[in-house]
């Protein structure tokens, strides 16, 4: 166990170092001086720019700056934003819950729809229901989430008034208002995922339904929905869980467009604003957090396969890792 842990942890650490160094390198290559951004055009006199650059050590060689940053990170210090003076750690800490809640809710919505639809269309594979579900999920895949967001705002916020267009409320402030504010953005994201999940679950369930124990259950005269729910769902949700797991990593980085359209204080917007305003420390911090979460989630998914699933098909797990 300890050895296998080391064997896994070393490449993970290497990944993190590679990602953070690449981010460092690429953001330094971006044209546009961070000091000018901080001072604004009105304040960017040559002396002021020189002073700010010196304060931020922007004139040091790249490797020196990277080494300094790594040293700080090792002590738990992600630095302070060039632009706002806020601790990068705090800034990310404020945004992450928003992004996670929207992303998590989107996954839940998608699963709530995909499980019945996927199983039903697998059970009736080739039939009318199946074709309807398949067609619908293709249609949903073809709707960009930003269009979905615009339409949802027009219909549910402006016309029907069921949910607010903007106005994020922290979960700790008011649970009801928080959920109302999260519904439309989560729905916009979940539409595409719903389609993918449905397709995945359908194909896996079709395979499961051909297994002997299902035929046995049928022969025993168990009710259909009981067979589907009790016997077929769990073994069929293998690919689904893999994909959901992988997406948790992607969700951490948020969706810029959805967050902008709904004025959500999420990680995606922070990242893009920070890139645009050359807040390099912030970009660096976010890239690190996203990379860590990606790496950790994948690590966890691997562990879950190897140790928890008794029906694991090894080749498949390895292939997907």
């Amino acid at each position, binding site marked *: 166990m300890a050895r296998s842990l080391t064997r896994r942890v070393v*490449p993970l650490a*290497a*990944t*993190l170092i*590679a990602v953070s160094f*690449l*981010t460092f390198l*690429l953001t330094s*290559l*971006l*044209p546009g001086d961070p000091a000018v951004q901080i001072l604004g055009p009105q304040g960017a006199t040559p002396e002021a720019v020189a002073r700010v650059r010196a304060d931020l050590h922007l004139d040091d060689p790249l490797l020196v700056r990277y080494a300094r940053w790594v040293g700080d990170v090792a002590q738990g210090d992600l630095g302070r934003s060039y632009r706002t003076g806020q601790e990068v750690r705090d800034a990310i800490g404020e945004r992450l819950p928003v992004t996670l809640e929207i992303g998590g809710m*989107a996954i839940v919505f998608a699963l709530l729809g995909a499980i019945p639809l996927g199983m039903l269309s697998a059970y009736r*594979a*080739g039939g009318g229901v199946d074709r309807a579900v*398949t067609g619908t999920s*293709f*249609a949903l*895949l*073809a*709707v*960009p*989430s*930003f*269009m979905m967001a*615009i339409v949802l705002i*027009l219909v549910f916020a402006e016309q029907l008034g069921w949910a607010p267009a903007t106005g994020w409320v922290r979960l700790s402030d008011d649970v009801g208002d928080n959920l109302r504010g999260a519904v439309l953005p989560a729905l916009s*994201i979940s539409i*595409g*995922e719903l*389609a993918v999940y449905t*397709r*995945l679950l359908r*194909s*896996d369930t*079709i*395979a499961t*339904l*051909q297994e002997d124990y299902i035929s046995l259950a049928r022969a025993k005269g168990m009710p259909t929905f009981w067979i589907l729910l009790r016997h077929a769902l769990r073994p069929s949700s293998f*690919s689904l869980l*893999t*994909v959901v797991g*992988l*997406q948790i*990593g*992607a*969700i951490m*980085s948020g*969706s*810029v*467009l959805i967050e902008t359209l709904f004025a959500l204080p999420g990680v995606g917007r922070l*990242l893009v604003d920070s*890139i645009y305003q050359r807040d390099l420390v912030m*970009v660096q911090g976010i*890239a690190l957090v996203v*990379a860590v979460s990606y*790496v950790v989630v994948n690590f966890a998914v691997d562990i879950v396969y190897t140790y928890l699933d008794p029906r694991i098909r090894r*080749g*498949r797990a390895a*292939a*997907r890792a």
Partner: protein
Amino acid sequence: MAVPLLEPEAHAEGGALGTIGPGAVPAGPRSRRRGHGPLFWAAVVWLLLVAFCALFATWLPVPDPNAPNVIDKLSMPTWDHPLGTDGLGRETLSRLVHGARVSLVVSLTAVSVGMVVGGLLGMVAGFFRGWFEAALMAVINVILAFPGLVLLLVLLAYVGQSLGVISLTIGFLSIPVYTRVARANTLAVAQREFVMAAHTMGASRARLLFREIAPNVVLPVAAFGLVAMGVVIVLEGALAFLGLSVEAPASTWGGMIAEGKRHLSTAPQVALVPSAAMFLTVLSLNFVGDALRRKFDVREANL
């Protein structure tokens, strides 16, 4: 697609591609073998139409897509302007026709780059395994864990927002997905009886890889390419919203939607027409791609 920062569809793609692992059994027990339905043919016709527009846009009898005519701006569809005009009074139909070219080039290039490079790498890694596989997967992990938007912005800042750069960057960022899929398929196929048999009979490794394994990996990956093209087309739209698509005045579907958004309350057709074109194209790609995939799966089973 490995541009996780941009769009959830992009994430979804990773998942969708995951379905073509060897375990996927799309043809259900009840599915009857039959010809393609009218929907399939409608989709094929639409795609051919889009491809035709993209190829011959310059020669088609449509007005200059970049010629503004402010007097006629935001026009509803009329006899003169079959699909209306945009905020500058430019002909929506002709912009749509020329925009098809961008959508087609971006999606074809990005998917081919991702598929060829990623597919090859994945196959080699899955077949030879060992240090090459380990190193490759490490690199792949780095790309996946890296904020793709940063790379895109740097490239665009240095090379300019040309069609080529955007296509190649998206292609590059999608390499990991194809690598994973190709590797997964290779791993599975390599364990199949016919490969084992060829191996025992003394076939060379190169022969094994290219004659026995490759055909079984390429087909499912290629069949999925059409669906992936749809994803890239949507991604172009997302990039246009961020102002990161091909430079104006070139018309792109995403750019048309983004420019039309601010007229949504007064002249919704400006954004809706290109949205509909994008929707129909992606939908058609999904339908046709899925149908082709089912075909290939059947052949694979016969092997």
